[in-house]
């Protein structure tokens, strides 16, 4: 355990969980007569009141379309929307706000890159490299691209702990590789990939890298310049913000040379029936009225998390993860799936021969929300030899008591399936 986490066990550094929980109105409720134990933040996180208020305030006071009107409301809406973009820029340390494209979520961000950068660069016989632990949203867009271009989708393997085999990955990068796309953190296993090193390896071969940061952004600070990744994608709703908003970061030189994706209003500079010229970045990729309220909510979420401080969040989550890992290991018949050295607070497991859906139903009766199934990673499930897993995912608003409730619930599962 790191020194940081040890301090938090002793209760030293600054995350007052009980105080934090009061910021999340949804947590203070009973489910089937039991206090809600929310352990499904990797599916979607809960929202602090600050985010909900920001969205409400926008609709109550500032609602207007952006980048269009000359009236004051439109000015206010535009400023709030662009302020949110600047908050995102700072949050991931991008060089410029023009590198921040608002999209619906991680899935849309990846599709955007596949359909623009990918379509422009990938030719017949070329290769796109992904990994065995990818979410369907980082598999299928590349599959579609490769089918269209008669290109080859290659898959870098993992070991039995759920860690990438770096030598294999390096070996699979070749002169035909046009892009490497991989998860920063695995949604199913919690594995934190050594992405900085991987980007370095890929760049040595001249291969650009897209990082799927959906499961990373909620847990630790992202620095796209330090990582030197070419694209970074994440979702607002997993980062304590609203659904329907997400971010694609791209290096400006790449975004510049990419053709637009969707056509429409806001993405143009001028339109005639003969020829249209594109708006400058990032608007070239934001056709139509965007999710203004969502972007503002995401900005509020970033403010909220930044005020808590990622050092405190990471220490608390590290403590919770260690506590939960030990508690689950002590349960007879329980098998943890995903035992990488570097993990985020995600615990996948199977309970003897009990199907995860039965586990999920029984836990739900105890007020405990977990995810069960294949977690949109069917190829990974096949690789691990399990049809499905149960997954408990922890956020900074979880406590050791939540883990205790999970363990008690799992005892009930074992009692029923004795």
């Amino acid at each position, binding site marked *: 355990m790191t020194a940081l986490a040890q301090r938090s066990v002793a209760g030293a550094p600054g995350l007052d969980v009980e105080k934090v929980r009061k910021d999340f109105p949804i947590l203070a409720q009973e489910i089937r007569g039991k206090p809600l134990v929310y352990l499904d933040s990797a599916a979607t996180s809960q929202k602090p009141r600050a985010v909900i208020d920001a969205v409400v305030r926008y609709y109550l006071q500032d609602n207007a379309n952006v980048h269009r009107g000359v009236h004051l409301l439109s000015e206010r809406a535009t400023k709030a929307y662009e302020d949110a973009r600047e908050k995102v820029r700072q949050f991931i340390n991008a060089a410029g706000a023009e590198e921040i494209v608002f999209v619906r979520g991680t899935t849309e961000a990846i599709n955007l890159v596949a359909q623009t950068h990918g379509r422009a660069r990938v030719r017949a016989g070329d290769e796109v490299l992904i990994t065995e632990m990818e979410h369907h949203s980082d598999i299928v867009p590349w599959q579609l691209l490769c089918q269209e271009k008669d290109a080859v989708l290659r898959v870098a393997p993992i070991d039995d702990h759920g860690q990438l085999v770096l030598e294999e990955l390096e070996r699979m990068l070749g002169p035909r590789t046009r892009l490497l796309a991989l998860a920063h953190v695995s949604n199913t296993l919690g594995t934190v990939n050594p992405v900085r090193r991987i980007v370095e390896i890929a760049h040595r071969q001249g291969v650009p890298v897209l990082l799927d940061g959906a499961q990373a952004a909620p847990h630790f600070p992202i620095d796209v310049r330090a990582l030197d990744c070419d694209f970074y994608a994440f979702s607002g709703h997993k980062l304590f913000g609203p659904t329907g908003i997400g971010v694609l970061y791209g290096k400006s030189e790449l975004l510049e040379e990419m053709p637009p994706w969707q056509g429409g209003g806001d993405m143009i500079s001028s339109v005639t029936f003969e020829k249209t010229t594109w708006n400058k970045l990032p608007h070239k990729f934001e056709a139509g009225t965007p999710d203004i309220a969502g972007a503002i909510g995401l900005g509020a979420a970033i403010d909220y998390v930044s005020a808590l401080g990622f050092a405190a969040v990471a220490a608390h989550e590290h403590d919770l993860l260690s506590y939960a890992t030990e508690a689950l290991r002590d349960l007879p018949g329980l098998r943890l799936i995903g035992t990488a050295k570097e993990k985020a607070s995600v615990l996948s497991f199977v309970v003897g021969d009990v*199907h995860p*859906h039965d586990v999920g139903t*029984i836990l739900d*009766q105890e007020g405990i929300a977990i995810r069960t*199934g294949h977690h949109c990673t069917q190829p990974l499930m096949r690789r691990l030899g399990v049809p499905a897993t149960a997954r408990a995912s922890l956020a900074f608003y979880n406590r050791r008591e939540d883990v205790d409730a999970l363990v008690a619930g799992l005892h009930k599962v074992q009692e*029923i*399936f004795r």
Partner: protein
Amino acid sequence: MNPELRDLYQEVVIDHSRKPRNFRKPEGANRSAEGMNPLCGDEIKVHLKLAGDVIEEIGFEGAGCAISKASASLMTTALKSKTKAEAEALFQRVHSMLTSGQGNVRLEELGKLAALSGVWEFPARVKCASLAWHTMRSALDGAGTRVSTE
């Protein structure tokens, strides 16, 4: 354990999920269909040996949760030697029990299948229990199309 859970995981259900009956492809099977529940990843194959109008043999294969396995297992024991019309009638009654509770179904007439009477209180699990039945129906129709309960 709360009463809803006890209703869902009755002993018969646990027993049939642990030791599924007719868990095989019967010899001479002449009708088969596949069913899947994409959300859960449950997959099932139902095989029938149909002689004229009568289900002489019935078996199933696949993987799934306790509810889907128990339902399939109980179904095979209930449908052996039944006619197509009887199977269809039973499908309707089971379907009604799964979606609306006992309703106008008399549980005592359903025999061991009544063990599935607790499922309706768990809307997310109804499709687990009905998967085998829809698949059986597809096999019976001879359509052989893939059934999906999503």
